[in-house]
């Protein structure tokens, strides 16, 4: 019996992987080696450097496991080694791929004189050890290869260094740290003197792992080796082979180490080493040697297969030769192998162990089992054989990131029983295709599976019925199905059945509403973004108008009930535009929406929620269904596929539809005819950015605080200035009044803003009869035909309120606000609905007369200059501000004339300005109310006088109280001025006093207070423990009662103080010294001098006067000078702030008096 193995042999080279140290200097490992483009690249770099300079170089070759790095090292070793069989073999291999490279290597040998001896080859495979150990082993092997043993020093200068290094390395003495880098460098240099030194370290990653996991690692040796080769004209070539870049080995190390290694890697030229799938496939083709007797059959098989592959879209495999090269592999198997190996295995190593390994599932064993009959179709190894090796053989032990999918599929097929051969083949093929990837041409599609098995349809259906595979119609792909008790199709069909009874609108209501759209042309032409919200609707609906405060400028109804008419609209009035789109066909939308909703519904079933297998399957179906729905939505509501109407009270007006949102633009054109043009995108919008809100806040504050200044006092080019220019300046709302040269707010000149302004004026006028909520004004401005953007309104409304400040009153939460202040404006912007306004202008007849009289009596002027006469608000504003300035005493006391008390009551409780002025206040002051519709009011002047008098009583009340208190105190003290009292009290300051009087005495003695009023306030406060401004009448009474007691106690203390002094030290004089200044203010001191010290003091004074007389020339002048200077000093210490200006002339009087 003939098997395939008899006619197809596998190259021995691929049977095992290479080991650098073992295979060096041997021909066998090179047998069958394929020099790939990558290998040529590396060898070429080496050869080019060796021929172009006398220095060396350093390369780090980085490639994945099993990509043939070690084999490459063997090739390099052979090519640059000594003359002989191995070098010839290596050069032949290289020459077959690149003759130029072969010549270059020979040239290198010639240049360096190594034609016979070859380069010094220091080759080692690293293990987890310090770099120095590996390098030493490599250098040692080079010495042995060259000299047979370590030569004496006479022949090899570095012999001693090498011996020392070897003994260091083998020593158990912990104090020895292993071979020193210096010694190793010396050996390397010495070797390189005789011939170029080529250091090759395979598995260099092991060294790096050792370093990254130990503390005392030092990358410096490596750097030195690399530098030794590069700069110093010494031909040292270093080649390291590893599967990650240096840095990746130190991913978990600290920053410092990381940087250190990045630095070392910088010394090396990094060469990535990995073959592309196409290159890998090229390798596969070289593995098999096929007996010539088969060629004919292969050709016929290949030509049929190539056509099939072409149909599948696999261009690479669509030629007969390409397919034939794959034999004995099925071209599909060859196509997926590179991807499969790199994803789940160790690249070429896995690939070649499959192709040439000894495993029972590997190719050689399969070939040996495969019988070959002359008549039957040529047997080939297909996807199912690949599956057997990779999954059943569990070759890919650690499939890594893709592991879960791998296990899922493996488990699934392992648990399947009783399948026929064809079923197995198909199931396994599907499995392996699923693993490689679902997208692209190589997927388990119906057509592709037709190449795997003959007439697979029935078998596939059977597999599907068994629940082993599932077909995804949307992707034309079969999937291995992990199995679930639930049948996805039934679930979705069940959901569809329930949905079928629902009208389409209800199905659509389950999805998110379509996003709003912009009427593009209209927005661009009018500098204002018009956004239309979209929703599904039916003709039976009675459409409600949009709220003026809605965030959108209009609504687009997408009609979904196949009726060819528009819905009716309820009381449209000045509502924002509502457009209806009637699609010509709803079929696609209906089908896709119901399908999508069915999947959604299925996903929400309780049994599905707990079944992740079904859930993930439905999840993928959902994504597909969403795409389909989206496409259907777009085509259904395409402008050309719909009829468009603007809904009005009078019925539906057809709109011309062009491209895009032309119909919406047409609707906006018709609706927003009086829209203002605001040339600032930052403010002309519905909601501001935080930056914009800040700028608008600054603008509003400027409007309120600096209305009369040019440009509101703004300078520069900030956003608030840009807003000012766009909304207020260019429109003419804020401009310089030519009459009085001050800026003010008034009706705009810009015709586009005029309708908005007039609307506002209408609203103000409307508020003559009753208060109007500010939101009504907002609504009027936001509604068509104006449609002002919400963020602009506060600016325009504030301009209006300021322009009509004397006519329009503002109320917050129902309370009259006499002034539009920045903080009020902040609240107004935030909550317009909390505010109301009312118009008070154009008062005539009797009321006009009263206002004029009041304005004259109270000296009230209108707040804005364009108003020639004051009106209700100006008068009331004045009254309210006066009342607000009153202290609590005045607000509470009964010590006021009766009229003032009643006027106060009226002012404090007033809510409505006109009510106050024309009814409450006249009543309080004993006048008749002022009627609105009479011509004259005879008592107008008397009334105004009375108001003025009452106001004066109120504002003067507190001052009068303090004056009274002051007089009362002086009277009680029997003194005529504050100074005298302060002087008496100051004398007690350093005495030990009872805490009860202490504060009182301190208050009396307080000189730092600048005037009588402050002084008496402090005293009154100390007496009553309450500031006079907070007094009630009871506090006043208490003061009147308690103060005399305090003064009496104070007088007793003064007397006691004097007596005590006298008792203590014999005769005692008390002197009162008063210094009076030019302005009449005084400083007084009581000075006590007892007899015992008097004599001594007088002696000192006499001496001083004697000395002074010598200077001044006369006794009398000396007396005066002393007095003047002393007085000046007293003044300067007593009144430090005035002392500097005091002169002798100001010292008018010095009084001396003895106190009894």
């Amino acid at each position, binding site marked *: 019996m003939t098997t395939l193995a008899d006619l197809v042999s596998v190259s021995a080279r691929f049977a095992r992987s290479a080991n650098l140290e073992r295979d060096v200097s041997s021909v066998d490992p090179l047998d069958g080696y394929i020099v790939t483009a990558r290998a040529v690249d590396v060898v070429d770099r080496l050869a080019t450097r060796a021929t172009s300079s006398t220095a060396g170089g350093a390369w780090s070759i980085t490639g994945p496991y099993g990509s043939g790095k070690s084999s490459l090292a063997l090739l390099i070793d052979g090519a640059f080694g000594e003359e002989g069989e191995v070098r010839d073999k290596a050069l032949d291999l290289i020459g077959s791929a690149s003759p130029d490279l072969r010549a270059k290597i020979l040239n290198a040998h010639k240049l360096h004189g190594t034609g016979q001896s070859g380069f010094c080859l220091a080759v080692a495979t690293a293990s987890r050890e310090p770099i120095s150990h590996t390098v030493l082993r490599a250098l040692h092997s080079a010495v042995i290869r060259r000299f047979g043993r370590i030569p004496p020093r006479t022949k090899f200068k570095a012999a001693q260094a090498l011996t020392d290094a070897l003994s260091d390395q083998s020593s158990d003495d912990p104090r020895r740290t292993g071979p020193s880098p210096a010694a190793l460098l010396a050996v390397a240099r010495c070797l390189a003197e005789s011939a170029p030194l080529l250091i090759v370290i395979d598995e260099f990653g092991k060294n790096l792992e050792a370093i990254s996991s130990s503390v005392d690692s030092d990358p410096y040796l490596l750097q030195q080796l690399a530098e030794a080769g590069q700069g110093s004209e010494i031909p040292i070539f270093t080649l390291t082979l590893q599967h990650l870049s240096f840095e990746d080995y130190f991913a978990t190390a600290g920053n410092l180490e990381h940087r250190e290694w990045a630095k070392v890697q910088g010394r090396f030229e990094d060469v990535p080493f990995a073959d592309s799938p196409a290159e890998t496939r090229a390798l596969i083709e070289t593995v098999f040697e096929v007996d010539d007797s088969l060629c004919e059959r292969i050709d016929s098989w290949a030509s049929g297969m190539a056509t099939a592959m072409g149909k599948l879209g696999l261009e690479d495999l669509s030629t007969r030769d390409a397919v034939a090269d794959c034999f004995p592999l099925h071209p599909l198997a060859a196509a997926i192998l590179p991807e499969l190996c790199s994803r789940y295995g160790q690249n070429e190593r896995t690939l070649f162990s499959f192709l040439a390994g000894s495993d029972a599932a590997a190719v050689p064993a399969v070939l040996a089992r495969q019988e070959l009959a002359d008549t039957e179709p040529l047997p080939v190894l297909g996807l199912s054989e690949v599956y057997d090796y990779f999954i059943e053989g569990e070759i890919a032990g650690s499939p890594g990131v893709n592991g879960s999918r791998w296990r899922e599929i493996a488990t699934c097929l392992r648990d399947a029983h009783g399948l026929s051969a064809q079923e197995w083949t198909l199931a396994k093929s599907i499995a392996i295709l699923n693993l490689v990837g679902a997208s692209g041409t190589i997927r388990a599609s119906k057509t592709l599976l037709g190449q795997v098995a003959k007439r697979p349809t029935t078998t596939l259906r059977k597999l599907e019925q068994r629940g082993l595979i599932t077909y995804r119609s949307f992707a034309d792909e079969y999937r291995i199905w992990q199995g679930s008790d639930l049948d996805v199709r039934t679930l979705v069909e069940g959901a569809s059945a329930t949905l079928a009874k629902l009208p389409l609108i209800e199905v659509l209501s389950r999805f998110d509403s379509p996003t709003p759209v912009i009427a593009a042309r209209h927005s661009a032409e009018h500098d204002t973004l018009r956004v239309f919200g979209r929703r599904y609707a039916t003709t039976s609906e009675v459409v409600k108008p949009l709220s003026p405060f809605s965030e959108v400028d209009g609504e687009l109804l997408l009609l979904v009930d196949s009726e060819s008419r528009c819905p009716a609209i309820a009381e449209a009035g000045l509502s924002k535009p509502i457009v209806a789109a009637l699609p010509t066909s709803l079929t696609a939308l209906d089908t896709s929406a119901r399908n999508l909703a069915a999947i959604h519904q299925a996903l929400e079933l309780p049994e599905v929620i707990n079944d992740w297998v079904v859930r993930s399957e439905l999840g993928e179906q959902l994504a597909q269904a969403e795409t389909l729905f989206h496409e259907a939505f777009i085509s259904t509501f395409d402008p050309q596929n719909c009829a468009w109407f603007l809904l009005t009270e009078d019925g539906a007006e057809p709109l011309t539809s062009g491209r895009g949102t032309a119909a919406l633009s047409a609707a906006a054109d018709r609706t927003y005819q009086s829209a203002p043009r605001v040339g600032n995108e930052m403010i002309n919008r519905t909601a501001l950015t935080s930056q914009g809100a800040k700028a608008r806040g600054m603008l509003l504050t400027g409007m309120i605080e600096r209305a009369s200044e040019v440009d509101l006092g703004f300078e520069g080019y900030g956003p608030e200035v840009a807003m000012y220019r766009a909304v207020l300046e260019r429109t003419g709302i804020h401009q310089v009044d030519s009459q009085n040269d001050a800026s003010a707010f008034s009706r705009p000149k810009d015709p586009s803003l005029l309708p908005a302004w007039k609307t506002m004026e209408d609203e103000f006028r409307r508020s003559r009869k009753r208060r109007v909520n500010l939101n009504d004004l907002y609504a009027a401005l936001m509604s068509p035909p104006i449609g002002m953007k919400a963020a602009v309104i506060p600016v325009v409304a504030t301009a209006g309120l300021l322009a009509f400040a004397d006519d329009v009153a503002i109320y917050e939460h129902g309370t009259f606000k006499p002034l539009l*202040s*920045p*903080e009020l404006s*902040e*609240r107004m912007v*935030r*909550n317009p609905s*909390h505010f109301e306004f009312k118009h008070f202008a154009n008062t005539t007849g009797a009321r006009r007369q009263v206002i004029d009289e009041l304005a004259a009596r109270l000296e009230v002027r209108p707040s804005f200059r364009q108003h020639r006469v004051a009106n209700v608000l100006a008068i009331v504003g004045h009254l309210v501000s006066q009342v607000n300035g009153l202290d609590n005493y005045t607000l509470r006391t009964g010590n006021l004339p009766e009229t003032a008390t009643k006027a106060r009551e009226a002012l404090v409780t007033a809510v409505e300005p006109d009510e106050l002025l024309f009814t409450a206040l006249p009543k309080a002051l004993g006048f008749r109310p002022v009627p609105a519709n009479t011509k004259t009011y005879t008592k107008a002047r008397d009334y105004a006088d009375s108001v003025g008098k009452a106001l004066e009583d109120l504002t003067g009340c507190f001052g009068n109280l303090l004056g009274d208190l002051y007089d009362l105190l002086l009277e009680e003290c029997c003194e005529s001025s504050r100074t005298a009292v302060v002087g008496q009290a100051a004398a007690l300051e350093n005495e030990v006093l009872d*805490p009860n009087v*202490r*504060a*009182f005495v*301190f*208050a009396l003695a307080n000189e*730092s*207070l*600048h005037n009588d009023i*402050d002084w008496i*306030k*402090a005293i009154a*406060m*100390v007496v009553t*423990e*309450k*500031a*006079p*401004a*907070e007094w009630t009448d009871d506090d006043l009474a208490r003061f009147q009662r308690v103060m005399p007691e305090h003064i009496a106690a104070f007088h007793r203390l003064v007397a006691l103080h004097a007596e005590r002094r006298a008792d203590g030290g014999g005769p005692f004089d008390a002197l009162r010294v008063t210094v009076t200044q030019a302005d009449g203010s005084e400083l007084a001191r009581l000075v006590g001098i007892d007899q015992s010290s008097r004599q001594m003091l007088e002696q000192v004074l006499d001496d001083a006067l004697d000395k002074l007389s010598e200077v001044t020339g006369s006794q009398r002048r000396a007396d005066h000078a002393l007095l003047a200077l002393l007085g000046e000093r007293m003044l300067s210490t007593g009144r430090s702030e005035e002392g500097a200006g005091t002169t002798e002339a100001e010292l008018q009087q010095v009084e001396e008096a003895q106190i009894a």
Partner: protein
Amino acid sequence: MPEEIRHICGISGGKDSSALAVYLKDRVPEMEYFFCDTGAELPETYEFLTRLEVILAKPIARLNADRGFDHWFEIFRGALPSPQMRWCTKNMKIKPLEQWIGDDPAISYVAIRSDEANRKGYVSTKPNIESRFPFVEDSIDHAGVMRILDDAGIGLPAYYEWRTRSGCYFCFYQRKAEWIGLADRHPDLFERAVAIEQKVLQDAGVDGDADFGKQAMKGRQYTWSGGETLVQLRARRDEILERHEAAIARTASTRPNLPLVDSLADVLNEDDDTTPCTVCAL
């Protein structure tokens, strides 16, 4: 020409800052006094400030008199301030102060006493403001503060009879017993606090028909006092007072002859240990 350095002294309405103001009256004649007015202080505080102004013979600058709590409550559309969202301190204390000072070089005098030198007051992080601690420098302790106030004849703010700290009448750092104190002494203010709370609760959908889910619950406080509404708190009046009295008795037995001010502080501190807002309380 070097810029004029401003000297500023903040007054909270409490005893320490008031004593410091009096203490520095003659020492730093160019002193500017300020008070961050929330518009919601206790009447006792306003009354006390007027007293202090009389003694200082200078007006105390009222910062943000125009934008008090009511203003910000409108602006924040009914979110109560809370320890997690203390917009009150930020908008009514820190911002107005920093705005008032501007970029002028200034020395700020802080009323930390020598016996509490470790306490943290509001020390501005602005580079142009230098902080000084005169009580710490001059070793003035609690007794010293009381003496300064007594000598000046202004005494203590009246709220010390039932509350330990100055600040808004509805301060959320208030202890339960202090809320009862407010209800007893200022029923009108208590009712206003209840009204504010009720408005917030209603806006948030409690007892109302607003969509509760739409109100961002994160970091928002819906009641002034933890865990209950003011109405519920007032219903527990007797229980709270009982506990409070018991605590006073306990303190009295462990530390005899303590002035009421201090024993109250001790007791209320026992009640909870939340760190009060130093900006307001100092």
